């Protein structure tokens, strides 16, 4: 009886607490992703990036958030006021709602839905209404063009991303995020290696879906000033920003769940690699040590103290992450290790995926609209369909003909790559024909 009550309380409260954590922490996370982006950008461009607020600019996101909160919220005279007012909320709500079905470690999940992954994809796609309506209601040509571009781009790349996801789902045989990760554990390999082409298609499509460079046409600064956000300022603008970065986290989480093994450690099934269990603690210790190393070099004493505090926090995190490795603790709480380490690996993978986004952003120029559409419709969508067929073939070979994993998936990946090369070649040829796009 008591156990039942306990389970009921757990079943109600854990999702609630998780939801609260997501809503409360996500803005902060988004802010720090922005900081990370600026730091990565600075690093790639031979600069330092934000260095003023807090040591190494660690408090910059908070300062930015405060500034945005107290900025004037300008609503243009000719705007459709009601829609202008609530459009950013749609984007933010959709992005945050999508987080609810994601499993960040075996402990941390709001709801393990039957249709989990589809839910994430579908709900996050609703965020487009925020962009489209915001762009339309601003009553400005730049905003309208940005909104139109955004809608067209999302609809086009959603298809490719969806087909890429279907490839992964074929392998997993389920839609539940939890079971997908379990399936990868059973396969003994991440789906990124079983379906590399699908993973590639998903990377490209997810960049396009989140409006990141080189597909950032809806907010292309040099063309449309700020696209659909041109007329927004202050807090509402910050909401769009929050939605964009939350969406990045969402697509990174989908990729992590479906292709990168979710919360699984690399080589989760191989005991020879068990030393990787120490990696989380070692990484935290290394970061902490770097903080201590930098602390005396800070210009102001407060900053030094802050740096030391961050270092101590890192060491604390290292201790917490190391705790499950002690036999006594793991006997007492057997779920501790998968819970904590799972969350660590998941977040690490999400972070690396977002880093990839940033890397691409600072390397590539921007696509033009017709090129973007051509890439989506003539390359990615056919490729993703071929990828689905290839995975189906591999599964048939594996299940019915008794082929091993490696030959079956190797063969089909090879076939898919041949098709990809052919598609790329065909497009290249078309490019040569299209030297002059204009007519006049």
């Amino acid at each position: 009886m008591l156990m039942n009550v306990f389970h009921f309380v757990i079943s109600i409260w854990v999702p609630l607490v998780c939801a609260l954590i997501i809503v409360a922490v996500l803005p902060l996370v988004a802010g720090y992703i922005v900081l990370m982006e600026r730091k990565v950008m600075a690093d790639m461009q031979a600069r330092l990036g934000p260095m003023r607020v807090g040591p190494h600019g660690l408090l910059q996101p908070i300062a930015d958030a405060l500034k945005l909160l107290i900025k004037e919220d300008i609503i243009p005279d000719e705007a459709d006021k009601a829609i202008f007012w609530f459009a950013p909320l749609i984007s933010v709500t959709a992005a945050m709602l999508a987080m609810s079905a994601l499993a960040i470690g075996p402990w941390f999940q709001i709801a393990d839905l039957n249709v989990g992954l589809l839910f994430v994809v579908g709900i996050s796609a609703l965020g487009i209404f925020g962009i489209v309506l915001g762009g339309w209601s601003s009553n400005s040509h730049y905003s309208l063009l940005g909104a139109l571009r955004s809608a067209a781009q999302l609809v086009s790349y959603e298809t490719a991303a969806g087909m890429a996801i279907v490839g992964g789902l074929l392998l997993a045989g389920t839609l539940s995020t939890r079971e997908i990760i379990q399936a990868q554990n059973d396969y003994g390999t991440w789906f990124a290696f079983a379906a590399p082409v699908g993973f590639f298609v998903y990377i490209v499509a997810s960049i396009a879906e989140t409006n990141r460079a080189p597909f950032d046409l809806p907010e292309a600064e040099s063309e449309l000033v700020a696209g659909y956000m041109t007329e927004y300022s202050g807090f509402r603008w910050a909401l769009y920003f929050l939605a964009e970065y939350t969406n990045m986290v969402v697509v990174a989480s989908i990729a992590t769940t479906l292709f990168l093994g979710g919360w699984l450690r690399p080589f989760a099934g191989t005991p020879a690699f068990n030393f990787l269990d120490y990696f989380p603690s070692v990484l935290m210790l290394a970061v902490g040590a770097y903080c201590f190393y930098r602390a005396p070099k800070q210009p102001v004493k407060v900053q030094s103290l802050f740096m030391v505090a961050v270092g101590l926090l890192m060491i604390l995190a290292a201790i917490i992450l190391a705790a499950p490795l002690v036999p006594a603790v793991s006997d007492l709480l057997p779920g501790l290790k998968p819970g904590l380490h799972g969350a660590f690996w998941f977040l690490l993978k999400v972070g690396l995926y977002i880093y990839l986004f940033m890397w691409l952003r600072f390397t590539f120029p921007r696509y033009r609209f017709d090129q973007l559409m051509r890439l989506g419709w003539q390359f990615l969508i056919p490729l993703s369909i071929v990828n689905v067929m290839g995975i189906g073939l591999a599964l048939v070979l594996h299940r019915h003909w008794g082929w091993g994993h490696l030959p079956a998936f190797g063969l089909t990946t090879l076939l898919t790559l041949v098709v990809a090369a052919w598609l790329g070649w065909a497009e290249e040829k078309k490019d040569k024909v299209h030297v002059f796009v204009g007519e006049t």
Partner: protein
Amino acid sequence: MLDHIVFYFFAALAVVSAILVVTRRNVVQSAIFLITALLATAGIFLQLHAEFLFIVQVILYAGGIMVLFVFVIMLINMDVSLHQVQFNRQWWLGLLLALVLGAELTIAIAIGRSHLSFGEAAPASALEPSTQLVGKVLFSEYMLPFEIASILLLVAMIGAVVMAKKKI
């Protein structure tokens, strides 16, 4: 109890938004309320344990079709239509006929409730998990309609391209 609250909430939301869809002057606002109505319907699907249909409704209807609608509305400069008469000349006749239709349906439902025994609803577990079930039925018994539907989509796609293209 929770079931009831969820159902009546979504039902009320759907009806109110539906009324606003047909009465609003501004097409964009109509579209927004249509999205609300569709999402409320999706909520009712969820309450009926039709998870797969719920997500299909969200992705396809709300996410796909309505994006198309909003896209077209934004493409078309509609400042003019704001100041036009919104209802056609025979609106009273149409309204009357539609209401008669509604009354007929109501009567049919009322008669059905009292005279036909619907029996007790199947247990919720009979439909779980809905994704697999729908998939199985769709790809076995309804294979041919499924293929026909895909051809329909192809035809519609070609048709839409032909319609909307300026010069073919």
